[in-house]
């Protein structure tokens, strides 16, 4: 992925989003989301430089937004980002055991990525699925009523699907 490449892609995304927006000059966050989706769960740091040129905003403004929000990452993350809920409703219904088993199975801690580049483990605040707690999200998909057994089924299932592809 060359710098020119990033510039071209980011410019396209920015122009596309700006053209659909009701107001100008406030599309930074939506654009960053789209850039992150395009590159697969992370934003290449070079993109900030491009956004600076496109928006005319100081680079510091772009960086501060990029680093303030927990969902943005400038580090390469796994193909699947697992976000496990660490809020109280999940905690009182067995969430800790689920967290422990995820760490055990994946052999990583929060914020780390598996060596095969498949999974990144993150914690999230409430996902609003407390009726079926404990819960986690893998990319955009939510999984509820988790137990350590179900967690290993889900992860194993994904791993074997990846291997067969």
């Amino acid at each position: 992925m060359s710098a020119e490449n990033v510039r071209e892609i980011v410019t396209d995304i920015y122009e596309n989003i700006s053209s659909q927006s009701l107001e100008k000059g406030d599309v930074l966050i939506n654009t960053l989301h789209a850039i992150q989706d395009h590159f697969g769960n992370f934003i290449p740091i070079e993109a900030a430089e491009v956004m600076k040129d496109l928006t005319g905003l100081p680079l510091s403004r772009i960086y501060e937004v990029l680093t303030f929000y927990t969902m943005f990452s400038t580090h390469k993350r796994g193909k699947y980002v697992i976000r496990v809920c660490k809020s109280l409703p999940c905690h009182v219904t067995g969430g800790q055991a689920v967290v422990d088993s995820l760490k055990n199975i994946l052999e990583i801690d929060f914020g780390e990525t598996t060596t095969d580049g498949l999974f990144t483990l993150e914690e999230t605040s409430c996902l609003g699925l407390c009726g079926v707690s404990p819960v986690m999200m893998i990319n955009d998909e939510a999984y509820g009523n988790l137990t350590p057994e179900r967690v290993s089924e889900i992860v194993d299932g994904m791993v074997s699907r990846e291997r067969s592809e």
Partner: protein
Amino acid sequence: MPAVENTVLICAGGACISAGEKSVKNVFEETLKKYSLESVVRVVETGCMGACDLGPILVIYPEGVFYQKITAENAARIVEEHILKGRVVEDLLYKGDSGNLTEKPQEELPFFTEQVRIATRNLGVIDPLSIDEYIARDGYFALHKVLFELSREDVVEILKKSELKGRGGAGFPTWMKWDLTKKAEGDTKYVICNADEGDPGAFMDRAVLEGDPHTVVEAMTIAARVVGAQKGFVYVRAEYPLAIERLTHAMAMAREYGFLGENILGTDFSFDLEIRIGAGAFVCGEETALINSIEGKRGIPRVKPPFPAIKGLWEKPTLLNNVETYANIPPIITNGGEWFSQYGVDGSRGTKVFALAGNVKNTGLVEVPMGITLRKLIFDIGGGVPGGKKLKAIQTGGPSGGCIPLELIDTPITYDNMKKLGTIIGSGGMIVMDEDSCMVDVAKYFLEFTVEESCGQCTPCRDGTRRMLEILERITEGEGTTEDLQLLKDLGENIMSTSLCGLGQTAPQPVISTMRYFWDEYEAHVKEGRCPAKKCKSLIQVVIDRDKCVGCTACARVCPVEAISGSVRKPHDIDPEICTRCGSCLAVCRFGAISKVSP
């Protein structure tokens, strides 16, 4: 075309989807095709039906038979038995406590029958992707009324009579916000929907957006008409992709039908909406932080006043309400303010959606008149605590709220009562906790949350909450002192009086409230090194009763750290040095030989 004989509603709320709804629906539809029934059976995916613990749920009409906890395997059986042969599949019916089966729990269980559904009137009833179904349930009638029959002042008057207060947390009278924004000077104004629902344990906004997105579109269009706004934004958190998807669809349909966009319903009134997606910052639920985030900045709160009604988005007058508040607007306008205020009690009128979560049997969403007692909500409607355990406390209001102990369970839920008890209704999350929950641990949990979510702008919140967390960590690790307790209290009061925004001003609340009602528990930790709920890992040990142990080895096999030793058919032992107190062994022992002890 053959006439439709059955309509099947499948709950496609977020919770049911995460419990496997998609595969249930696929198998169900494939089986219908297999028997060439697809033209006489209509399958509709609805929004959240509310009873999350029963999901995935499927209801077959015209009879209204309610099937629960369906798996992909038995979805086919429902087609083959119920649809094809007209036989009810008994083992998938709702089973009451006494083992009795019921085909229509929605007409019998207090969980359903005690509800008065206004904000959630369409959830689980209509297809959220169909604007026609929304219209068939009186949708967009209120907008029509506002455009053709009522003056802008009339609408404010109706809201005033309804006594509706903001359902997002602060409980500010809605009519006053509308009136202030309406009267604010300026040609450019905005309306915003705060859909950055983030209080742990609250999920009604998610359900409304996913299950009835048009109600938000309609209410915001009405609001824009009344306050004189041209553009609106719905700020949805990125954790809710399904809500974003369904709202986007609803907005497109509304534009097509002339309810949104240029010259709405042929009038000279134009208004359009756009979705803005958050990026994982709880503080953006604070209205001025949210405004900053929409402007493409860090989500840090602004100093108030000026209030958004005067100077909000891009310095223009801005009306902000949350999802549930908006969802109440169309029916209030259609039926009148008095109709809404007939429900509830003085000072707390109308209905409120509560989210039941944690250690409660019937988890999910319920909408009930305000003023209902906690007992009725948790026990009659919620079914009480599962597993024969005792209720210990109910946490309300998320990280800005507090815990209500069992002794106060007969309190009616009103804004004033909750304040007296040292908590708030907040957005309506009710986290029920049984006797196994340690209140110090709960307080620590909320502080971890605040430390993580503090925006970092003001010192009391950024540094103060971190110091409070360190003290709580010391206490739960058995290293706390009695001085620590006083320090916690002082620090908490300090942070509350000196923080800039609502997040900091209420952050110590979970600690102050648990100290108020569970002082003994704090003292046990610091004075006796004991955790009465046997939750704090540093203060407990897991032991095997050698008299009860039969040596089945089940515990040794599940232990992730190999802390358990012993030969087959001989009593086992746990090495406390290796044991991590994870409790895996406790869960598998069939002889009740393993227990947690705290000195």
